[in-house]
């Protein structure tokens, strides 16, 4: 209990108190607090348990780099895990819970693994559980995964709504600190359409609440003036917006947290908005992250980044401890010394690893009245769940010189530019010796980096560099920049001069990556074991692979790896950073494309009738089709058996509007079809239909269907429901790429036509009553004939085709007449015993006939596999012919389609393997079942299967092996043409 609220100061609104809960305990804060600043103000130091060892952890930072203070926010389906408290704006009623502890944060029994810590080193899991002891990994994995972890995801559906927005601009500026604002101003002044995205609630970055004076006035006044000018110039400002990814062709992804900071919303705004920004030029001003120092016990709650301690004081009016020491290796931390004194929370001591300390720094410490302990380092920390004292020793030796009682240690190890976005669209980051860190590499697309991200740490430099970047961006989009006004900044520390100390040795673990619990000893072990590549180090130790992407750990780890290596950190290099820069909730990426909006649902013109008449609808590709029409008390199985039986005995009608339809016209249409189909189409007469098979370029089956010749130069092609789009694209490809000189046009007319199939021995009687003045006799309308006619004056095309094996007709009419025509068919058919039938009965009828459909046409099947070799013309070349008869496809042991009959009458299952042996000794797979049904015509459970050398195995007894469902059924192998193999019924 060390942090407290200062008597005054900060940007918080002390008149607006907010209450929130942390692990069920009610606490208070002010408007303008973050969850982290409010927790510190309430004296909370312990906020979480570490990933692997369950060590107590406190708040480290004040930004997106936070590795420790990850919370689960909200409750129920709105609970969201792993949110940094440091970036969460406080609101009334906020509910936060700590993570990775059981049963409670204070008493975490999982911390019992800590005595095992010496064992749990880098690569422990793999060394112990893989290789010869692999079986034990299987045993222990679930336990290990539970013990090591973060927050749990909610189990319910996400109740919030999200939006996606496309946005275009001339110049996108990422980051609203001094460099970003200066860049935005200059670009906007030149007339560019500027967008400024900043992840904070208010712009300003490091300037927000700072004591710096610009042009003689407080930084806040300059900020307000600049923002007002930007707004007047029409710039788009996106607060609370994190640009997380930089993609090809100047496309960037950003997520705006629209309502996350509000206690209640009226529902008119999405929770978050995913912005897809297309920018002609980009200015990256993402700033820099302060690096921790690596010393024993550096993960104890109370050890914080120095700049975070400063930010909490001057931005939130919160002191992080009663006795605060500073431990640094560089000049930048001396600004913290001055600022904390000014904020009324002076430091106790400054420990500087450097023996020679620059005069400006000495003066800053002296002016603040703070003891300066030079040439010294922190060798260890004391305290249970929060810091109570430090061991301090000389930088060269190993012993402890003195002990210092403190409850907070502010640490500064230098600055790490946030090069993430630059790395996504640029060359490898380059090492900078002055910063002892990496700078953005060479751009591979139109961006400029400026400010701290480019290694410039002083405000004056950031403002100048930002303005210059704004000018350059304006020029890049063809605009003439305006003159840059001079800006004067109050005196600031300009030195840096860090002393490189990759890790301080002593008793206890010195952590490099706090979020993934990777200690300096792990990195050293990896190095000893020969992991010299940074890519290997990362994977072996998991360093930098947590949700914070190693924002505070990568550079320190690289320095450790570089110890004793000639080239240093520059030679080790970094890994490439990948999007997203910070975690993005999947809901934001999905936007409105969830539930019914996930994919457009296609309905036939007869859809409403189906639903109103008991149809069970099921998706077939994008379409909804009736599976069967259930009568009162009927099961699906009873319904489809009744419907299929009725087609065999009387007559049925099926909605086949989902079949793909392609209108093919032009003087060369016949020639085109003759090339596309493997069988002959030259001789197809006007008024006739023909079944055709088309192949891919590799000789495999693409699709089958009938094509009707409507007149000399016009054809109507039908495809299977699922292949409508691929076939259309195939035809377009051939006409555009292969044969651009053919005079043919293809148009998809799938949804222009409503189609129904009238099938059964009494189909002709129904048709005679249905059509206006048309002779439907076998002579006038023979098998495969196509005729134009009408139903009650509505024009239709009737084609005598059969998929079911019965006497059958397909009737096509304009989609707008579909429902009326359908009703008329049922009215007229009533006297002949008509029933509608769905896709289940349709499947039954075609399986009984041995016709192939989706189950068989899985892309690995050629006509030689499914008894369609006769469809491969030997008289003409056609698309796919060169490879259609290659050796592999003619192998006698190839899959061939067979029929299977279940001997014991048990239903068969698609996907079951066909094997030669009984249960217990099945032998290798000989094939698989592709489609199954109960056959009303045979009174048996039947299936189609693809079996090696299937034709020759007819008459054998085999087994349908389905170990997943513990079934092993005896089957007779028979011809796939179960019913009416000669086709007399459909041709009568």
């Amino acid at each position, binding site marked *: 209990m060390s942090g407290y609220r200062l008597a005054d100061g900060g940007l918080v609104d002390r008149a607006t108190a907010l209450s929130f809960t942390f692990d069920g305990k009610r606490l208070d804060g002010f408007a303008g607090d973050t969850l982290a600043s409010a927790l510190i103000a309430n004296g909370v130091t312990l906020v979480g348990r570490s990933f692997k060892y369950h060590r107590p952890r406190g708040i480290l930072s004040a930004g997106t780099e936070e590795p420790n203070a990850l919370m689960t926010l909200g409750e129920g389906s709105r609970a969201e895990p792993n949110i940094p408290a440091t970036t969460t704006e406080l609101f009334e009623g906020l509910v936060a819970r700590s993570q990775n502890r059981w049963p409670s944060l204070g008493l975490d029994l999982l911390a019992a693994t800590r005595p095992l810590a010496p064992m749990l080193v880098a690569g422990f899991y793999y060394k112990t559980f893989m290789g010869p002891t692999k079986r034990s990994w299987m045993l222990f994995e679930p336990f290990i995964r539970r013990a090591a972890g973060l927050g749990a995801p909610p189990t319910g559906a996400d109740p919030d709504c999200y939006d996606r927005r496309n946005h275009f601009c001339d110049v996108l500026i990422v980051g609203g600190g001094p460099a970003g604002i200066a860049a935005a101003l200059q670009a906007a002044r030149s007339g560019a359409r500027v967008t400024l995205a900043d992840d904070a609630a208010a712009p300003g970055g490091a300037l927000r609440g700072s004591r710096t004076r610009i042009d003689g006035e407080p930084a806040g006044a300059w900020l307000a003036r600049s923002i007002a000018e930007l707004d007047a110039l029409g710039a788009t400002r996106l607060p609370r917006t994190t640009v997380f990814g930089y993609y*090809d062709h100047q496309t960037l992804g950003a997520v705006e947290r629209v309502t996350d900071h509000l206690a209640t919303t009226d529902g008119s705004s999405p929770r978050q908005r995913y912005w897809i920004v297309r920018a002609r030029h980009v200015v990256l001003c993402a700033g820099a992250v302060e690096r921790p120092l690596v010393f024993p016990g550096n993960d104890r709650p109370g050890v914080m980044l120095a700049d975070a301690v400063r930010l909490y004081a001057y931005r939130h009016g919160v002191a992080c401890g009663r006795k605060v020491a500073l431990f640094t290796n560089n000049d930048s931390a001396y600004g913290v010394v001055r600022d904390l004194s000014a904020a009324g929370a002076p430091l106790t001591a400054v420990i500087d690893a450097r023996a020679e300390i620059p005069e400006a720094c000495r003066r800053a410490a002296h002016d603040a009245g703070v003891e300066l302990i030079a040439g010294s380092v922190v060798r260890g920390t004391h305290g249970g769940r929060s810091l109570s004292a430090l061991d301090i020793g000389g930088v060269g030796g190993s012993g402890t010189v003195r002990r210092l009682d403190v409850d907070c240690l502010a640490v500064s190890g230098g600055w790490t530019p946030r090069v993430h976005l630059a790395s996504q669209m640029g060359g490898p980051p380059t090492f900078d010796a002055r910063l002892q860190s990496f700078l953005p590499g060479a751009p591979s697309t139109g961006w400029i980096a400026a400010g701290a991200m480019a290694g410039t740490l002083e405000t004056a430099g950031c403002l100048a560099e930002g303005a210059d970047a704004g000018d350059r961006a304006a020029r890049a989009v063809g605009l003439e920049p305006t003159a840059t006004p001079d800006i004067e900044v109050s005196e600031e520390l300009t030195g840096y001069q860090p002393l490189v100390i990759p890790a301080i040795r002593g008793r206890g673990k010195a952590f490099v990556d706090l979020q993934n619990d990777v200690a300096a000893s792990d990195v050293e072990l990896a190095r000893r074991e020969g992991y010299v590549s940074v890519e290997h180090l990362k994977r072996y130790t998991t360093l930098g692979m947590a949700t914070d992407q190693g924002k505070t750990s990568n550079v320190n780890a690289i320095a450790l790896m570089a110890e004793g290596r000639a080239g240093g950190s520059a030679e080790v290099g970094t890994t490439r950073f990948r999007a997203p820069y910070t975690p993005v909730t999947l809901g934001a990426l999905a936007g409105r494309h969830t539930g019914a909006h996930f994919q457009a649902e296609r309905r036939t013109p007869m859809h409403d009738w189906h639903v109103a008449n008991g149809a069970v609808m099921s998706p077939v590709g994008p379409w909804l089709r009736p599976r069967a029409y259930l009568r009162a008390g009927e099961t699906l199985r009873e319904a489809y058996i009744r419907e299929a039986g009725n087609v065999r005995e009387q007559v049925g009608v099926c909605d086949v509007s989902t079949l793909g339809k392609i209108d093919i016209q032009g003087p060369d249409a016949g020639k085109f079809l003759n090339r596309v189909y493997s069988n002959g189409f030259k001789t197809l007469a006007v008024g006739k239909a023909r079944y055709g098979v088309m192949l891919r*370029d590799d000789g495999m089956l693409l699709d089958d269907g009938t094509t009707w010749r409507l007149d000399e130069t016009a054809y109507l092609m039908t495809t299977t429901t699922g292949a409508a789009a691929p076939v259309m*694209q195939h035809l377009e490809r051939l*006409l555009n*790429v292969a044969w651009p000189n053919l005079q043919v046009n293809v148009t998809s007319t799938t949804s222009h036509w409503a189609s129904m199939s009238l099938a059964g021995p009494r189909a002709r009687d129904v048709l005679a009553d249905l059509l206006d003045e048309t002779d439907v006799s076998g002579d006038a309308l023979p098998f495969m004939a196509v005729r134009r006619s009408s139903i009650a004056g509505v024009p239709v095309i009737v084609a005598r085709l059969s998929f079911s094996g019965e006497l059958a007709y397909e009737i096509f009419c304009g989609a707008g007449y579909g429902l009326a025509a359908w009703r008329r068919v049922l009215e007229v058919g009533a006297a002949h015993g008509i029933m509608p039938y769905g896709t289940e009965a349709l499947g039954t009828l075609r399986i009984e006939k041995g016709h192939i459909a989706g189950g068989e046409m899985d892309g690995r099947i050629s006509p030689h596999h499914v008894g369609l070799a006769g469809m491969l013309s030997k008289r003409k070349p056609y698309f796919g012919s060169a*490879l259609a008869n*290659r050796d592999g496809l003619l192998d006698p042991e190839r899959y061939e389609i067979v029929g299977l009959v279940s001997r014991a009458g048990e239903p068969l299952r698609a996907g079951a393997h066909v094997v030669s042996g009984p249960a217990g000794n099945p032998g290798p797979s000989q094939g698989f079942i592709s489609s199954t049904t109960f056959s009303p015509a045979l009174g048996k459970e039947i299936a189609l299967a693809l079996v090696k050398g299937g034709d020759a195995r007819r008459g054998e007894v085999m087994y349908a092996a389905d170990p997943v469902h513990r079934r092993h059924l005896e089957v007779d192998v028979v011809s796939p043409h179960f019913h009416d193999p000669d086709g007399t019924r459909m041709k009568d």
Partner: protein
Amino acid sequence: MRILCPCCGERDAREFTYCGDASRVMPALDAEADAWAAYVWGRKNPRGPHEEYWQHAHGCRHWLRVTRNTETHEILSVLLEGPWRARHEAKDPR
């Protein structure tokens, strides 16, 4: 990615369907199996400029011959393919 469709203007890559290597030339239908096998399975995977087909599937449905740098995804040229190719090539593609 963004592709400059000669018919529709610059559009997001999501509107287009990638349709494979355009540097390969389809053999005649009656060519030998070896020629077809080379066409179907013989693929280069170049680093640098690569000619490929894209169809503006959610737009004008035109087939485009796109030259894309596979290393940087920079699009170097976009030409209409098919019966309109000759007429398009006569004009400035932009």
